């Protein structure tokens, strides 16, 4: 037994049923009566100190059932999914928001897109769904026709207001000043000090989760690779792993290692870009040009060896789509040598520039205790004292060979812009080291294996550490063996709340710097 299952069984006893349709078997799924859904959350928080990883719903009417609501908890190496069945008319469940803060947006999203009411939720405003959508439009329901365009209706979004002498508002977006994705930020400020930030996202909602349901399992991997373009490899790996756990597919050893090499190269490229961009937002443009030069070298090598600068569509169900030969290995090793040499010089410059340090230190602080309450993941978590990394705590091959790979993960406790930058710097070093190790020890053999679609009514789960943090996929096979539901949880889905909480108390001109240090995906959040 595990800590999480022990805690929930001792509190709820015979009310719990363990679900055998959930894969992999290490991720336990249990069904509780809906009235105990919130109690389960409370027990897991108070007794097992679990963090909430995701919350979602599925429409199970094709199986002759109603709806289902799921909450996924994490504690150390364990994941536990708690599931409750709901009737098909007037479905509702007790809200977890007062127990777990990240449920705040998960539940607004469930209500907006699936039309299930989280009873007792403090905020009834829609999320991702805009005010001009028709009232009964719940796209994730099976009864919704996704092929027709939505008509627009009249409606207005209610913003949180701050009042008082000298308080003013700054609305920003959705079209921002730079070359970035759209989203709206509304600041309430007094003088230069921000007293509140409210985010409004959903502008790039492309209906991805609904789209999955119309695709074959193979094509799903292509769509997963386009949930967030900068994280294409990690999303494709997470989708493929969730799928592979439901089938007999044994991914060849070599393919697993190749996937890990792609994943680490994606991490290096994005971290290099981010470190440069963070410094640029502190008016240290030198670093942007130097880092973007290094990043371009990585992308060009990707293009030359793997046929795509971001390695899109190179991870496929059952394996990897592209192999590497001895020439390619040599090329990557010499590329890493040259990048590493320049990178270390730049790190010294970063560390020794007082004008830069003045901007990045003590700016945009996300305190460790708040980070824990918000259940943030990835870089933002590790910069705020939370030791979370799926490569260590929920290792997928080849990271499960700890004694060989000896992955080190940096954890800082200051939670400021500098901490988030420094975590990236350490991770670039570590990724360079493990790519070298993997290339030198790459196992021989095939890179794909045959893949058979899963049987009806099975579900698969996977968590993968992308460069931003933990990515979770949960897949469910429908009655004909098709995709019935694909739940995507990008790290941004939780970390946007972290940004919102890190901003008050900072000055308005520091917002771009703080925002860049989180560098969230809008597309991965809006889906």
């Amino acid at each position, binding site marked *: 037994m595990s800590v999480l299952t022990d805690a929930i069984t001792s509190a709820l006893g015979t009310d719990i049923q363990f679900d055998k349709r959930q894969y992999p078997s290490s991720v336990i799924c249990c069904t509780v009566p809906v009235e105990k859904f919130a109690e389960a959350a409370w027990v897991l928080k108070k007794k097992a100190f679990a963090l909430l990883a995701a919350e979602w719903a599925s429409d199970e009417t094709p199986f002759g059932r109603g709806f289902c609501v799921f909450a996924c908890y994490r504690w150390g190496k364990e994941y536990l999914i708690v599931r409750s069945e709901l009737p098909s008319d007037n479905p509702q469940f007790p809200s977890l928001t007062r127990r777990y803060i990240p449920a705040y947006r998960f539940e607004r999203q469930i209500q907006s897109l699936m039309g299930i009411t989280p009873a007792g939720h403090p905020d009834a405003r829609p999320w991702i769904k805009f005010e001009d959508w028709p009232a009964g439009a719940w796209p994730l329901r099976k009864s919704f026709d996704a092929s027709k365009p939505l008509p627009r209706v009249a409606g207005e979004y209610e913003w949180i207001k701050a009042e008082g002498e000298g308080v003013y508002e700054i609305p920003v977006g959705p*079209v921002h000043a730079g070359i970035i994705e759209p989203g709206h930020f509304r600041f309430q400020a007094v003088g230069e000090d921000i007293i509140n930030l409210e985010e409004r996202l959903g502008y790039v909602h*492309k*209906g991805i989760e609904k789209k999955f349901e119309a695709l074959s399992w193979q094509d799903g991997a292509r769509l997963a690779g*386009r949930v967030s*373009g900068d994280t294409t490899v990690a999303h494709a790996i997470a989708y493929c792993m969730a799928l592979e756990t439901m089938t007999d597919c044994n991914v060849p050893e070599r393919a697993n290692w190749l996937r890990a090499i792609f994943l680490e190269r994606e991490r290096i490229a994005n971290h290099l870009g981010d470190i440069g961009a963070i410094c640029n937002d502190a008016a240290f443009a030198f670093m942007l040009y130097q880092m973007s*030069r290094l990043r371009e070298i990585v992308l060009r090598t990707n293009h030359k060896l793997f046929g795509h600068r*971001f390695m899109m569509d190179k991870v496929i169900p059952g394996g990897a789509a592209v192999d590497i030969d001895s020439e390619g290995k040599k090329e990557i090793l010499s590329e890493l040598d040259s990048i590493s040499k320049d990178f270390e010089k730049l790190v010294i*410059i970063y560390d020794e520039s007082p004008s830069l340090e003045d901007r990045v230190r003590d700016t945009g602080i996300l305190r460790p205790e708040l980070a824990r309450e918000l259940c943030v993941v990835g870089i933002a978590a590790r910069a705020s004292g939370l030791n979370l990394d799926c490569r260590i705590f929920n290792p997928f091959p080849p990271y499960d060979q700890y004694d060989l790979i000896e992955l080190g993960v940096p954890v800082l406790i200051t939670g400021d812009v500098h901490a988030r930058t420094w975590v990236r710097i350490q991770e670039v070093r570590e990724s360079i080291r493990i790519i070298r190790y993997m290339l030198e020890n790459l196992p021989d053999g095939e890179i794909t294996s045959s893949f058979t679609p899963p049987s009806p009514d099975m579900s698969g789960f996977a968590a993968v550490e992308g460069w931003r943090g933990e990515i979770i996929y949960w897949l469910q096979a429908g009655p004909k063996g098709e995709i019935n539901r694909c739940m995507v949880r990008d790290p941004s889905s939780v970390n946007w709340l972290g940004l919102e909480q890190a901003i008050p108390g900072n000055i308005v001109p520091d917002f771009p710097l703080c925002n860049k240090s989180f560098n969230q995906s809008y597309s991965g959040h809006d889906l």
Partner: protein
Amino acid sequence: MIRILKQIFRTGIVTEPLPTEIISEVEEVGAKLEEAVRKRFRGSLTIRQVDAGSCNGCELEIHAINNPIYNCERFGVHFTASPRFADMLLVTGPVTHNMEIALRRTYNATPPPKIVVAVGDCGCNGGIFGESYASLGGIDKVIPVNAVIHGCPPTPVALLQGILKAIE
């Protein structure tokens, strides 16, 4: 400070000519471009980039054409923060239902004459996202498009070629 100067001088100028296989093509387009930019844009083409729903892959490559290796400013091409100053809108897609109004407003805020270039397979025709309740498809479903740049995402070289061709 001495380290910064050392790194700058050691790195030198890394801006390079485009790869040899397309260099003649770009030179040819580049000559016409210079003429066109001089005639129509007084030597500088100002672009406003609009993300109307992309997965952010295209944005990364548009960023890349600003890096010191491609350095698009040497072609007289630069990016502006406001559509009010723009000669060209570089729009990535698919256009989402939720971005449609913002895209129309950005288009209307850009002074005529203006050129709209749809970037990426999704910007051209909706790509993998197609047309649905949330995605309206290609940019031309919402605003008039003058030129397209295919690719998922288009490489920086393809972007430069596409921009040059759009103002030919």
